[in-house]
C-alpha cells in the first residue's frame, strides 16, 4: 500500500479495459506478465458476470417466476434434463433448477448471516485482545487455539446436535466456530499497526485506549477483516450444506443445497445423476465466484500474497 507503482493490478477495475503494462512493455517477461494479467482480468470478469447472474436469479426468481418449488408432480418424476426442465426433475417431480435457485437462496442467507456474525465476533475479540494486551491477550489467544484445535464441522455437529437442527442452530454453529481465524488476523494486523507513528501521535495527543482502538486501530484493519468476512461466506455455505447433508442442518423439506443432495441419494443409487450433480455445481460456482472476486480484491489491497486462496 505504500508503493502504489509496484502493484500493476491495482490499475485495472473489474469491468474496465486492461491498462497498458507499466515498465519495459517490450521484453519477453513483460509480455508473459501481460498474458497472465489478461488471464486474471478474464477471471475477474467471468466472476462478475456469473456473480451478477446468480444474485439476480436468487433475488428475482422468487418474485417473478410464478412456479412453486415445492409443487409435486409425480407424473413427471425423474425426468432427465430437457428444455422444459433444464436440470431435470427429482424423485417427486419437482424442478431441480428451481429448487437449486431456492436452495442457493437459503444457503446464501445462512452463509451471509453466519459470516457476518462470525466476523463481528472475530473483530471484537481480536481488537480487544490486541489493544488490551498482556494477560487478557494471552488468555484470549489460548481460547482461540483451543477452539481452532477442534475440527469445525465436528464442533458444528455437536452444537446442532445439542440444539435442534434448523436455520438458527446452523448459523450459530458456523458463527461460533469460524470467528477464530478473523480474530487471529485482526489481532496480528493491530499488533503491526500499534507501532505506527499515527498511533503514537494519537496516544501522545491524550487519546484513551478505547478511543485509539475504535477510532484508529479498527478502521485500519477493516480491509483485511472485510476480506476475511467475504472469504468466509463460501466457507459458511459449505458448512451449512455439509450439516444439511448429514441431516443435521436445514429441515429436509426445505430446499437447501445440502438437503437436496441428501434427498437425491436414493435416485442416484437408481442411476439418475441429475438431482445430485446440479446442487453440487450450485455450491461450486458461487464459491469460485466469491473466491475470484476476493482474490482480485486481495491483490489490490495486498499485492504480495496472491497465491493462497482461503477456501
Amino acid at each position, binding site marked *: 500500500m505504500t508503493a502504489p507503482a509496484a502493484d500493476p493490478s491495482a490499475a485495472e477495475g473489474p469491468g474496465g479495459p486492461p491498462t497498458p503494462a507499466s515498465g519495459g512493455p517490450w521484453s519477453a517477461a513483460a509480455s508473459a506478465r501481460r498474458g497472465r494479467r489478461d488471464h486474471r482480468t478474464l477471471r475477474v470478469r467471468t466472476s462478475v458476470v456469473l456473480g451478477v447472474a446468480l444474485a439476480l436469479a436468487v433475488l428475482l426468481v422468487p418474485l417473478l417466476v410464478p412456479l412453486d418449488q415445492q409443487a409435486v408432480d409425480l407424473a413427471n418424476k425423474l425426468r432427465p434434463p430437457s428444455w422444459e426442465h433444464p436440470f431435470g426433475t427429482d424423485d417427486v417431480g419437482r424442478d431441480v433448477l428451481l429448487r437449486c435457485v431456492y436452495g442457493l437462496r437459503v444457503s446464501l442467507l445462512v452463509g451471509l448471516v453466519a459470516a457476518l456474525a462470525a466476523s463481528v465476533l472475530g473483530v471484537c475479540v481480536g481488537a480487544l485482545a490486541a489493544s488490551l494486551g498482556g494477560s487478557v491477550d494471552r488468555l484470549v489467544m489460548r481460547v482461540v487455539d483451543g477452539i481452532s484445535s*477442534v475440527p469445525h464441522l465436528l464442533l458444528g*455437529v455437536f452444537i446442532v446436535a*445439542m440444539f435442534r437442527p434448523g436455520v438458527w442452530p446452523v448459523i450459530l454453529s458456523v458463527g461460533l466456530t469460524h470467528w477464530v481465524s478473523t480474530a487471529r488476523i485482526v489481532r496480528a494486523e493491530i499488533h503491526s499497526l500499534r507501532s505506527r507513528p499515527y498511533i503514537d501521535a494519537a496516544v501522545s495527543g491524550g487519546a484513551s485506549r478505547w478511543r485509539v482502538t475504535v477510532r484508529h486501530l479498527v478502521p485500519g484493519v477493516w480491509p483485511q477483516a472485510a476480506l476475511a468476512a467475504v472469504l468466509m461466506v463460501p466457507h459458511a455455505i459449505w458448512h451449512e450444506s455439509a450439516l444439511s447433508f448429514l441431516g443435521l442442518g436445514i429441515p429436509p423439506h426445505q430446499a437447501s443445497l445440502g438437503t437436496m443432495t441428501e434427498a437425491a441419494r436414493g435416485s442416484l443409487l437408481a442411476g439418475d445423476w441429475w438431482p*445430485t450433480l446440479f*446442487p*453440487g455445481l450450485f455450491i461450486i460456482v458461487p464459491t469460485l465466484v466469491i473466491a475470484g472476486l476476493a482474490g482480485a480484491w486481495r491483490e489490490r489491497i495486498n499485492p504480495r500474497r496472491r497465491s493462497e486462496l482461503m477456501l
Partner: protein
Amino acid sequence: MTAPTPGVPLTKAAPDGATAPTGDGPQPGGAARAPRAALPWRPMAGLAGRRLLAAVPVLAAVTLGLFALAAASPFDPVKQYAGDAALRADAATLAQLRENLGVDVHFTEQWWRWLTSALGGDLGDSSTLRQPVAQVVTERIGWSVLLCAVAFVLAVVIGALLGVAAARRRGGLLDRCVTATAYVLQAAPPFWLGLLAVWLFALQLGVLPAGGLTDTDSDTVTAGSLLRHLALPAAVLALSQTPWFVLYVRQGVLDALGEDPVRGARARGLKEHTVLYGHALRSGLLPVLTLIGSRVPELITGALLVETVFSWPGIASATVRAATASDFPLLAALTVLATLAVLLGNLMADLLYGLADPRVALEEM
C-alpha cells in the same frame, strides 16, 4: 536490474547446506549437515513433552466448553437416554434414572466427574449404540485411521507430483489445467464428490463397490475385499485433500525456483529432474510441512462426510448417528478424540519441520 542479484547469494544463507555457496569455505555446509546424521532424539522428546503438557489445559477447556454447551441444550438427557421407554416410564423410574445419570448437578461438577472417570478409561455409555463409549471407539477407530492415513498419503504424494509438474512451466497448459481443477475440486463438497464417484464407478462402470466394508454375501473382512471397498472412499477423501497440497507445493516450488540454491544447481549443470525434485521440491515442501498439521481438522471433516456417503464403519459415521440422537457421552468423547488428533498433527508437523530444516531449533518451538 541484473547487477544487484548475483551479489545476494554471498550474504544470504542458503536454505539447505548441500547447495550452499562454497565461497566461504566448507564450514557453513559442514555445520548444517552435521545434525542431520543422527535424529535429534532429545530435542524431539523435549518438544513432544512440552506439547503434551500444553495439551492438558486445552483438552480440559474443550471438554468444559462441551459440557457448558450441553447444559444450555434444551434436550433432557434422561429422556434422550431412555429413548422410547421414557414415554411409558412412570415418574419414579425417571427420577431414579435421573439420579443414576447424575445430570441434576451443575455442569462443572458433571464435567469433573466425567473427567475423573475418563482418566480411568470409563467414558460413559452411548445411548444410541447401547455400548460403552470406550468400546465404540476401540472397535471403530482402526477403520477411520486406515481410511484417513491412506487418503492422506495419497493426497501428499499426488499433490507433490502434480505441484512440481505444474510449477515446472508457469502459466503453461498443464499448469493452468492443474490449477483450475484444483480450485474447482477445492470448492466441491466431499460428499458430492463421493456420490458422483459412486454413480460413476459403482453404478455405471460397476468396477468398485458402492460402500460398506464387505460384500453383502459375506461378513468376514479379507484383504482383497477390504482393498476394493477402501478404494473409492480413500480416493474421494484424497481427492478432496489434494487441491490444497497441489496449490501449496506449486507455490513453494515456484518460489524456490527463483531462489539461489536452484540457480546454483542449474549453474552446476545438474539435470532438470534433479533440480526440480532434489532442490526445488525439497525447499518448496518446507512451508507445506508446517501447514500439514493444520490439515488434520480438514481431514477429519472430510472423513466425517466420506464415511457417511460410503457407510464406512468408522468413527465418523458413529458421530453422525450420535449427533442425530443427541448422544452426549459419545459425541463428547469423539470430539475430544478429534481434538487430540489435531494436536498430535500439529506436533508431527513441527517435528517434521525441525528435522527437514536444519535452521529450525526444536528447542525453541
